[in-house]
């Protein structure tokens, strides 16, 4: 009995770490740059498929793709913000108009990125085996790759939290999240900071994609479910809060693991139900103001 409970909890935490990493990027994009990025999952997909290509064709360690996925996704995100969203921001009459139109634009981006990937990689489901040997924890077996993934997500989360809390740029990001106009008046280069946040969000998605490809098969249309999970976690943890993303991620991972234990078909139903109830009862999230 105790072993079963431990089993469920550990499985939930392993899943939760991944969810937290996915959500952190979206939380940054929505919390600071005010873009509810529907194409978030597509950056995850790009990271996953790039890693697959590198691992399969060159036969090297998937972690090597970290130096490609992260920076490339960052540059891509940065450029997209500087060209598309910056322009939308300047033509939008109010912040709420910008939120709607940027969401719709990101939805257009989703179509573009997804279909470029379909042209490049085709619709096949791809997978490879990496660190798939089992590890004993508390009497049950877990894949080593799952442990590595969760550990990595936590390292990135802590590193990013320190960046926001301790560095000068981090301070500028936090200022921009609170009030972009005033932050601009205080000498923060607001366009650069927003683009930076969008780029960092994309980079996190790319890295998450790399980690996902180590545990699960990847394919060109995998993005949407991850986007929705990220939105649910962000809604759970509160927009723009890094600790919130982790609490939300682990909470959702645990819920998923518990529900899967009793009724495997209902895990996704449970996610959406929680999400819907949460939006109705406390739309600002657990850590939200």
């Amino acid at each position, binding site marked *: 009995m105790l072993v079963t409970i431990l089993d469920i909890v550990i499985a939930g935490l392993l899943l939760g770490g991944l969810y937290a990493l996915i959500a952190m990027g979206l939380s940054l994009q929505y919390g600071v740059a005010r873009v509810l990025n529907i194409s978030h999952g597509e950056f995850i997909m790009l990271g996953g498929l790039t890693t697959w290509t590198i691992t399969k064709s060159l036969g090297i360690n998937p972690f090597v793709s970290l130096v490609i996925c992260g920076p490339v996704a960052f540059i891509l995100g940065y450029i997209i913000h500087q060209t598309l969203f910056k322009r939308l921001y300047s033509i939008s009459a109010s912040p709420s108009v910008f939120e709607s139109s940027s*969401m719709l634009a990101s939805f257009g981006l989703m179509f573009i990125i997804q279909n470029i990937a379909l042209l490049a990689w085709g619709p096949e489901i791809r997978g490879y085996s990496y660190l798939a040997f089992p590890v004993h924890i508390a009497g049950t077996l877990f894949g080593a790759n799952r442990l590595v993934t969760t550990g990595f997500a936590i390292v990135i989360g802590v590193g990013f939290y320190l960046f926001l809390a301790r560095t000068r740029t981090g301070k500028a990001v936090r200022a921009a999240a609170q009030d972009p106009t005033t932050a601009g008046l205080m000498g923060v280069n607001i366009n650069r900071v927003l683009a930076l946040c969008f780029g960092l969000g994309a980079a996190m998605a790319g890295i998450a994609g790399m980690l996902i490809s180590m545990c699960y098969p990847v394919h060109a249309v995998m993005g949407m479910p991850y986007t929705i999970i990220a939105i649910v976690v962000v809604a759970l943890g509160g927009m723009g809060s890094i600790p919130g993303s982790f609490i939300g991620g682990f909470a959702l991972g645990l819920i998923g693991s518990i529900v899967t234990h009793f009724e495997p078909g209902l895990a996704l139903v449970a996610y*959406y139900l929680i999400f819907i109830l949460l*939006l109705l009862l406390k739309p600002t999230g657990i850590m939200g103001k």
Partner: protein
Amino acid sequence: MNWSKLELRKARTPGVLLIFLILLATLTLYASPYTVIFVTSIFMYIILTVSWVIFSGPTGYISFAPAAFFGVGIYTSAILGTELPLPIVILTGGVISFILALFVGALTLRLKGVYFTIFTLGLVELSKHLLLWYEIKFTGTRGRFVVLVDNTTIYYILFIILVLLLLTSYLIRRSKYGLALRSIGESEEASAHTGVNVNLLKTFTFALSAVFMGATGAIMATRWTYVDPYIAFNLQYSFMPVLMSIFGGMGQLYGPVLGAVIFTMLEEKLITEFPYYYMLTIGLILLIVIIYLPDGLVGLIQKWQNRSPEKQHVTP
């Protein structure tokens, strides 16, 4: 002199419309079966798009719920289709969607902006996965077979739904309810202060738009013969109406119709041969329209009309 010209112009639009309606009403007599099926698809997208615009156009609430109501209609048809006559099945599809939308609307329309949008996205996914779980757990199969109906009947039923919808949409636009809806879109608080019952109006309009989606789902299901939750609650049916309305422009009634017709034709030509390029183009068009044509094709046409001097004295 001048007024008779004006009268003529006023009479021209309904006249053209009438000829167009007669042509469509008799389409099955002279057109090939392929054309009838193709026009049926166009009708389906026009209905989804125009009914989406009834609510989301004036209020500015972007809803991704059409797939949920459409799916409810499809499953109404799949479950009741063998037991009840077709018109009652279609009516039931509309009524169930109406009730669902009333319930959902009353719960959620106080959510603002993107929160409402992601809620509706969640609603579609929740319905899909709940139904999938139910089907596998209790019926043991994933999909269902739907009673077959011949293409001519499907065509005429959709035609009737479309005419009713266009009439409803036209009347709403002209009435004080349309005005009240637009005032909600401008500012909810100001609207409430001028005596508009904001919540009631939003909820009712949301539900009204769902009726047409549900009824359309109920009749379209008969064309597919086999449905499963992934087919019925496909987010495509939420995305396309949004895209078509934005592309066509929501300022005038003909905007969403134009958007739906153009995209359905594009889809018909391109989707079988170049599916990825088609979807890629859709994404690009969406971005271009959002940035350069915020009022869609309607905005473009109006700009062009205002430029020609002959029209200038007609526009008030």
